[in-house]
């Protein structure tokens, strides 16, 4: 024990030899740690991807109640393509009922929250032109405050019929989504924020606003392409 204390106190003379040793040890530890992390990452990646895919599927069925099948599309450069052709872009999942009729779209969106990127998915009903549900897929918001964006029932009530109507030329939103203070909601396109989680709830509003303004016009222009599923498909 005494030996240990002595060891801690006896700081070696600052010199090039000690410095090199410090540097060497830190780099060595860094290399060991990096190796371990990469190893774990490589081993767990396929499993994590599969689980995330399952979670996404569950979320799609939750934001589009009543659907039986989905087909995934990707929107890039104002074009809508089957997800198998173009991997890059906004992922959109069209949901169909058991007769093959189009019921709506589940659209993935993300943006900066208070702590980190918030990833979410929202259900869009193309007939009523409303957002009919959201599910947060990934968030690191402050527990107890910011993470209420996915749990607070009063906040989620905002997304049962949020007006995101597009003008008749399908070029822009009639009323951009606004996030207002708790209790100040008067219009269908307004989101009532959470007191104590202003930044997180405003982030959700901004994510939905940005995404709906860019994605919905494209969807509406191409609705005939994805309108109905043939029975044999």
């Amino acid at each position: 024990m005494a030996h240990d204390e002595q060891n801690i106190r006896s700081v070696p003379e600052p010199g090039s030899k000690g410095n090199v040793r410090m540097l060497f040890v830190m780099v060595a530890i860094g290399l060991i740690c990096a190796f371990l992390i990469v190893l774990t990452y490589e081993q767990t990646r396929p499993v994590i991807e599969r689980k995330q895919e399952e979670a996404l599927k569950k979320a799609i069925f939750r934001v589009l109640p009543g659907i039986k099948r989905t087909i995934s599309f990707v929107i890039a450069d104002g074009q809508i393509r089957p997800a198998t052709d173009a991997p890059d872009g906004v992922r959109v999942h069209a949901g169909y009922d058991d007769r093959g009729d189009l019921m709506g779209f589940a659209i993935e969106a993300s943006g900066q929250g208070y702590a980190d990127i918030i990833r979410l998915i929202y259900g869009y009903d193309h007939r009523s032109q409303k957002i009919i549900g959201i599910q947060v897929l990934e968030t690191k918001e402050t527990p107890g405050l910011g993470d209420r964006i996915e749990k607070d029932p009063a906040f989620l009530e905002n997304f049962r019929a949020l007006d995101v109507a597009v003008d008749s030329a399908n070029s822009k939103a009639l009323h951009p989504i606004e996030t207002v203070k708790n209790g100040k909601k008067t219009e269908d396109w307004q989101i009532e924020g959470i007191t104590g989680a202003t930044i997180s709830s405003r982030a959700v509003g901004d994510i939905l606003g940005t995404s709906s303004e860019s994605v919905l016009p494209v969807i509406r222009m191409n609705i005939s392409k994805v309108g109905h599923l043939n029975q044999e498909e």
Partner: protein
Amino acid sequence: MSSMSDKERLGFWEELKSSPSTNEFLKGIWKDNPVFVQVLGMCPVLAVTNTAENALAMGLATTFVLLMSNVLVSLLRNFIPKQVRIASYILIIASFVTIVDYLIQSVSVELHKSLGAFISLIVVNCLILSRAEAFASKNTVKYSALDALGMGGGFLLGLLCLGAVREILGSGTLFSLQLFPSGFQEWIVMILPAGGFFTLAGWLILINYTKERKLS
């Protein structure tokens, strides 16, 4: 024949009880319990014990990080210069936290989501750094591993004590199993942050009372 094996077993237990390994392991569970005696790592203790499942997952994750970092710090204890030891420990701990983050995600995306930011916050759990600095940097790999298992076990025990009470009272369930008939009115406050403080206080009173009575 049977009396002899009894004697042998007694000898084995006696030996086990007095061996230093047992002591290093057991001190974390009871005598120096990280939650109830050292009161370390209060952030996860108060925040993620709203359900027993979260408490279990957090306890296991912390134990894993504690065990791995203690072993690695102990292995490298003679190589790490004193001036950069804290930086080295943090590097080691942060790496294992990243690893545990991937592992939890591969077990369950839902669990990963419900633990949220607290997985990354294991890095700053002072229990882990304090064991690396106070124990693993001065002891052999064997004792460091036992120390980590004991401290991790004690931490897990503390988390479970809080998690179980809070889930039973706050949701009427334990590990998501319904415990009470449908008429049960949940104490919502127990699953809110305030409930964490109440429950911790309750356990501290109970444990200190028991200890004091034992002494007198």
